[in-house]
């Protein structure tokens, strides 16, 4: 064999690096740069920015993100079950019920303890 099967990976890697470098370098060479204060500001849909771009934000956003991930994963695991509903039969139903019960207890706990209220 002329090339090792890994040669394609190497070629892909080289192409990826070269293209990425080209795309970021070419505009810098050919554009004209005349910055002024308004142009250098952070772009917020035309509205004048009110605060620094990098700042602290409340930890409750992380809480929302975590809760979202839980239900996202739950929904994702429903799909394969729904597609194969008839083949999996009673066994699949039992598995899903177990899954929902475990998740449901956690859901009830978070709800009752005020995890969903925006404090």
């Amino acid at each position, binding site marked *: 064999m002329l090339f090792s099967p890994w040669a394609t990976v190497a070629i892909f890697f080289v192409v990826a690096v070269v293209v990425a470098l080209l795309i970021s370098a070419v505009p810098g060479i050919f554009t004209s740069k005349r910055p002024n204060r308004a142009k250098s500001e952070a772009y917020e849909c035309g509205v004048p920015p009110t605060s620094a771009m990098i700042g602290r934000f409340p930890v409750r956003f992380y809480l929302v993100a975590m809760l979202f991930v839980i239900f996202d994963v739950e929904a994702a695991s429903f799909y394969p079950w729904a597609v*194969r509903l008839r*083949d*999996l039969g009673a*066994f699949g139903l039992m598995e899903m019920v177990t899954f929902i*019960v*475990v998740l449901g*207890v*956690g859901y*009830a*706990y978070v709800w*009752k*303890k005020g995890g969903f209220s925006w404090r």
Partner: protein
Amino acid sequence: MIQSVAIDWNVIAPVVVLVATGLLVLVVDLLSRSAPRQLLYGIGIVGSLAAFAAMLPLRGQELTTFGGAFASDSFSWPFDVLLLLTLTISLALSCLGKAEDGANPGAYAALLIFCTIGGLILAGATTLIGIFLGLEELSLALYVLAGTGYPRRSSQEAALKYVLLGSLASGFLIFGMALLYGSAGSISLAAMSHAAYAGGPLFIGGFALFLVGVAFKLALAPFHLWTPDVYEGSPLAVTAFMAVAVKAAMFAVLARFAYVVFGHDASALVPLWILAILSMIVGNVGAIRQTNLKRLLAFSGIAQAGYLVLALAGVGRGGVATLVFYLAAYAFMNLGAFAVIALIGNGDELHADLSAYRGLAFRRPMVAALMMLFFLSLAGIPATAGFIGKVLLLGQAMGAGPWGVAMAVALIVGTLVSFYVYFQVIWQMFAPADAEAVASDGNAAVSWVAVAAGAVGVLLLGIVPQLLLAHL
């Protein structure tokens, strides 16, 4: 057509019992507004004992389920018992009046139970996916538990440090697993042994990253830097759980990996021997200057993890018996020492400070005698479990070539250094008390039970080790 996987429910009965217990604790906490936390922890303890009862018929059997991905065999059984013992004692110590639980006893107890489930999965996992699943279940719950001393700053620090460094270690571990899978073409450990035999950069790289991840969780030097801060910051009962349960579960994984993958030839484990020697040095030397007992026991734990690695030298079933014996000894003496700290302060954090022990031998001679017993065992004095364990470890290491001898020398030197550390604590108990000594009058029955369990274990294993060794 889908092939349904046959599930042998008996094999995972202990896990199922614990899952049900964890959920029950949450539901009881929800339904009764005024349930005392002792009730919730009591449910946890009953569940832990029920899981132990479910394990009894599995003893001496070699069973697998989930298509061979989860095993209950003579390998996992002793580790499972240690995990349940640790859960029971940690929950018992959490019942004490001043024990911290983040004002959320239901979640606290459930998390401790879920941690133990992760440990059981780790001990029984025979595939890379099973190992990762168990590890994350164990770790994620522990990150939260480390922070349950909430208003205390050091507890927040512990949680943050643990979650950041722990996630990094998990990253190493899963990347290593990906490479191992690439080299073996299978996630099963049994298939890994062919790849180990063939060697190759993919396998070596994968094993190196896997080892880094495991060494972090075991707190082997140089991956130990998180240990003292996390042990010091976490609530007392959580620290006790962390010290014993995480080591038991991770050593179960490491031993199974070493036995299944490198059963034919342990020469690839040399990096592990180096980590062990480093741990023995760092742990014992680091413990010298500590004035906080939780930090001191953290460094002691680093050294003990190094000792435990010796059991894997010259991999074989004899090594696993040694490992289980020393882990059992380690569990009894550590849980005992933590139980004494909890006993005299009724579960508060003040009594983790070494100065609280000045003059204890005159104020509370019985408690001081038991504390002395646990520290003598940690040092490895004859007639205690620690001594027999170290003798077994030395025997195991001496038959394992030059690296085994090097580790045996490190164990002896480390033990000599550790005498200074442990006798310092004993010395404090006999020193005259300061005028402003903190009150050490805790006397709760539940902590006495935990202390007694530790003392009986240390003495029985130290005087009649055959009781345990005959069954391994």
